[in-house]
């Protein structure tokens, strides 16, 4: 059936003639969708012979579709696991594109300032061990804020998402309790709290539940002017998430050759600790060499010209050295 369709498509393409444009199909993560769609439409404007379709179906579905070979490239917020790579017939290269950060947002009656969260306190809240805003550990980290005697309600994502992955990845690194009981993933078994659907669901619940705390993407918090707190990083400084502190998280991280690296809880002094790359998944040895070359040109363009437009959409750009390294690897590995 599919073969017959392909033959039909080929005949159609031949009859239309050499003017026909090539379409690259991609699928995956929804977090970078706004910047990807801007990139791809901009690229199409400059290169009218290439049309790129990107479907934001979720990281999990993106990985599955690349493995099955139904798309030319995939995209994911969490790197593929060793098991997934072992099970996949298609060899892929992870190419980091932009950076995202996740911020703790809260609704504490009577508190309007920026709350400082030491890692153990953040983990304690999400583990259900710290249950009241008047807890001594919070007061100790925030001597100038007077917390009310109010129960804490934890709000988390109910849909599987890269945001949850980054947040639980961070909690797993800073708390052994968390990594032993809950672990990291796009969906986890949350010890406490209620689930909201999407960033907007979590933000809506935080807004309507006094005493609640949750996590949303930095972009979402910036665009919707949501108050969020700062988090203490590995070098002991309280850092509030911003585009600069997110990019700083990726600087000075030892980059493995396959780019599958978690940059939560990084060493840098100005680094915001709950940040992550998002990746394109590029098959290293595709059957269609012409398409492969087009895809390489596209990624080359995204990581050079494209990086200049990411801040306008509140994404943090890659550090220069990471982009250069990714492009080198792309040239060497994708044939």
């Amino acid at each position, binding site marked *: 059936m599919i073969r017959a369709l392909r033959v039909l498509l080929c005949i159609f393409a031949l009859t239309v003639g050499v003017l026909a444009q090539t379409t690259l199909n991609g699928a995956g993560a929804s977090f970078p969708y706004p910047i990807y769609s801007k990139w791809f439409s901009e690229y199409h404007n400059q290169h009218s012979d290439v049309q790129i379709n990107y479907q934001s179906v979720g990281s999990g579905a993106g990985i599955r579709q690349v493995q099955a070979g139904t798309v030319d490239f995939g995209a994911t917020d969490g790197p593929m696991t060793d098991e997934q790579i072992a099970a996949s017939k298609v060899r892929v290269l992870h190419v980091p594109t932009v950076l995202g950060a996740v911020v703790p947002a809260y609704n504490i009656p009577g508190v309007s300032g920026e709350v400082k969260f030491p890692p153990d306190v953040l983990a304690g809240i999400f583990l259900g061990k710290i249950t009241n805003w008047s807890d001594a550990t919070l007061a100790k980290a925030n001597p100038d804020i007077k917390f009310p005697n109010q129960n804490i309600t934890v709000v988390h994502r109910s849909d599987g998402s890269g945001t949850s992955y980054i947040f639980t990845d961070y909690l797993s690194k800073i708390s052994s309790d968390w990594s032993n009981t809950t672990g*990291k*993933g796009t969906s986890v078994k949350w010890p406490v709290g209620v689930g909201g659907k999407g960033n907007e669901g979590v933000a809506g619940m935080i807004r309507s539940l006094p005493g609640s705390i949750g996590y949303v993407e930095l972009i979402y918090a910036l665009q919707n002017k949501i108050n969020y707190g700062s988090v203490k990083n590995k070098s002991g400084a309280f850092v509030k998430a911003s585009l600069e502190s997110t990019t700083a998280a990726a600087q000075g991280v030892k980059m493995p050759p396959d780019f599958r690296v978690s940059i939560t809880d990084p060493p840098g002094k100005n680094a915001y600790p709950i940040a992550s790359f998002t990746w394109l998944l590029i098959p290293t040895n595709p059957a269609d060499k012409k398409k492969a070359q087009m895809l390489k040109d596209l990624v080359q363009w995204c990581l050079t010209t494209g990086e200049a437009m990411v801040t306008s959409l509140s994404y943090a750009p890659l550090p220069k050295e990471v982009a250069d390294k990714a492009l080198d690897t792309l040239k060497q590995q994708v044939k």
Partner: protein
Amino acid sequence: MAHSPNPVNPSDPMEPAQKPVTTIPTLAQAATERKTVAFTSALDRIRKTRPRSSKIPDSVFRLLILLTAASVFAIVVFIVWELVDKSRLSLHQFGLGFFYGRDWDPVNDQYGALPFVYGTLVSSFLALLIAVPLSVGVAVYVTEMCPIRLRSIISFLVELLAAIPSVIYGLWAIFVLAPLLRDRVQPLLAKTLGWTGLFTGPMYGIGMLAAGIILAIMIVPIIASITREVLSAVPQNQREAVLALGATRWEMIRMGVLRNARIGIVGAIILGLGRALGETMAVTMVIGNRPEISKSLFAPAYTMASVIANEFSEATGDLYLSSLVQIGLALFLVTLIVNALARLLVWSITGGTAGRVRA
């Protein structure tokens, strides 16, 4: 009993023409006779004018109709087969324990469906509990007591409720219903009915209660509009007969109308229940999405449709995906069982005979 000698219609001993002249035929009998005569003459006309070859369209038509009927059967079989096939991995791993397992932990690949089955059933029955009296009340008012001008307005509004997309209901529930529940309704319920254990614990606003209420609002239009149709199908002379026996208006509605229409009403309720069981978007926005079984209606819960919608796109592991498909299978089975029970209920009401008024 003597057989009628009439060769045209030997099986009808009540043929008025064969009766002794002394019996005066009733109006109804005369009408039947007129109809029969008209019918047979029409049939004759058709037989005479019709060419023989037109039997072929008849058989083609029969085949087509048979195919459409069979397609429903084929679709159901195909769905079940797909569900079982795609959930083979988790069926193999967990066996039937999947359906009563309480743990849902994607990180450690442990899956159990019970909290979702519980959430779906309880939220749906809560919705019925609220929606059935409300919608039957609306239907009775519209058909029996309402001024004609108001009637079309109310019917229009009820049908308008059915046309609102469920995501709108969900948003409304988050921003209006949940704060209202949290600040006003839940404290009151906790104070007055807290001893039942159904209304205890922290008051988030969102949770099982909010899901039940929003579902109730969504199924009221379905139940109300079908019930209205059923009630207006009850023959007028039933009402007149009950009133003539000296019944009050309430007794007339109870004995003359509702009693006659009960099967149609049960049918309407089943349709409403079907929507409640499968509703995804509005429920997932307010139920709190927590796979736990809690007696309190204030506590967050989770439904089968919601977990599939929430987790399918980001599910990576094979076992994880397979378990989500098996949740779909569980939803299918639950719907099947609930429908079968409802059918049994109808049978037990009617004692096996067909109802007088159907939807």
